[in-house]
């Protein structure tokens, strides 16, 4: 009989909750998320920003949903790990360049500044995603 890994299920639950809600909020507040992405000044072309800010919320929502399906868990956690590392790079680069702004992590409803707390939160999420990826079949 397979031993149930309680930490794995807690990690999946946390990741699902955070990414599903973050994605839905971004979908509901497209202009605010577009504004957050353009404020990073990493991608400056408005159309490229529009495409990125339209795909990311759906990627978060679908990855969160597929985390709940055991046979898709490894793939979705891998994608979550990749996008979390991209977020981490963006926030870190904004922080180092002295750009203080709403990180856009939760669209236009909750405010998360590009400070140390966002960096720590993303490191934590990256570790959780990596844990789920390694522990999934």
């Amino acid at each position, binding site marked *: 009989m397979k031993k149930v890994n309680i930490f794995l299920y807690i990690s999946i639950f946390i990741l699902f909750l955070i990414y599903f809600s973050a994605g839905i909020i971004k979908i509901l507040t*497209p202009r605010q998320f577009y*504004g957050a992405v353009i404020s990073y000044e990493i991608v400056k072309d*408005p*159309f490229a920003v529009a495409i990125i800010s339209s*795909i990311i919320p*759906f990627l978060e929502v679908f990855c969160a949903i597929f985390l709940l399906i055991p046979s898709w868990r490894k*793939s*979705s956690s891998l*994608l979550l790990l990749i996008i979390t590392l991209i977020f981490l790079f963006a926030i870190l680069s904004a922080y180092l360049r002295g750009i203080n702004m709403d990180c856009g992590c939760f669209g236009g409803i909750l405010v998360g500044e590009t*400070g140390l707390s966002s960096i720590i939160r993303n490191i934590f999420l990256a570790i959780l995603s990596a844990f789920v990826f390694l522990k999934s079949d």
Partner: protein
Amino acid sequence: MKKKGFSDLIFKALLIFFFSLAFGIAYLMAISSKLPLDQKETPAQQNPKYKEIDLAKAKERFDQGWLFVDARSQLSWKEAHIKGAICFPAGEFLQKITEFEKNYPKDTKMVVYCSGVGCSTSYFLAERLAERGYKNIEVFFGGWSQWVQANYPTEKGQ
């Protein structure tokens, strides 16, 4: 066996990605009118806490002597800013607000701006200033980039 597992992993990951891509593009087509993709002003947002203004109105406010508040980083403000604008990085709100409140009464007429069309920091700052009781806030939607393009007065920070 391992190789099969790896290709299955990548196949499913790509499937989720393309699924998101398809939904994202369809969503973008539906909401593109709400985004400032043409780098021009969009209709005023229905936010009761502050008004959105265009370049012409911002210049009018400048001539009338309204306070200009630069929501960009201190580094950008030092490089150059709208003449007379004060530096108030949106992310340093809690550190700066006490001093700001000492210097500027709640009825101060002000225009908040950030780097350009679509940037979010001016809205973020305007929202938080309004929460602190400031009533006469306007957000210059075109921001720094439009002001520079129009060749309006600027200065370097100290």
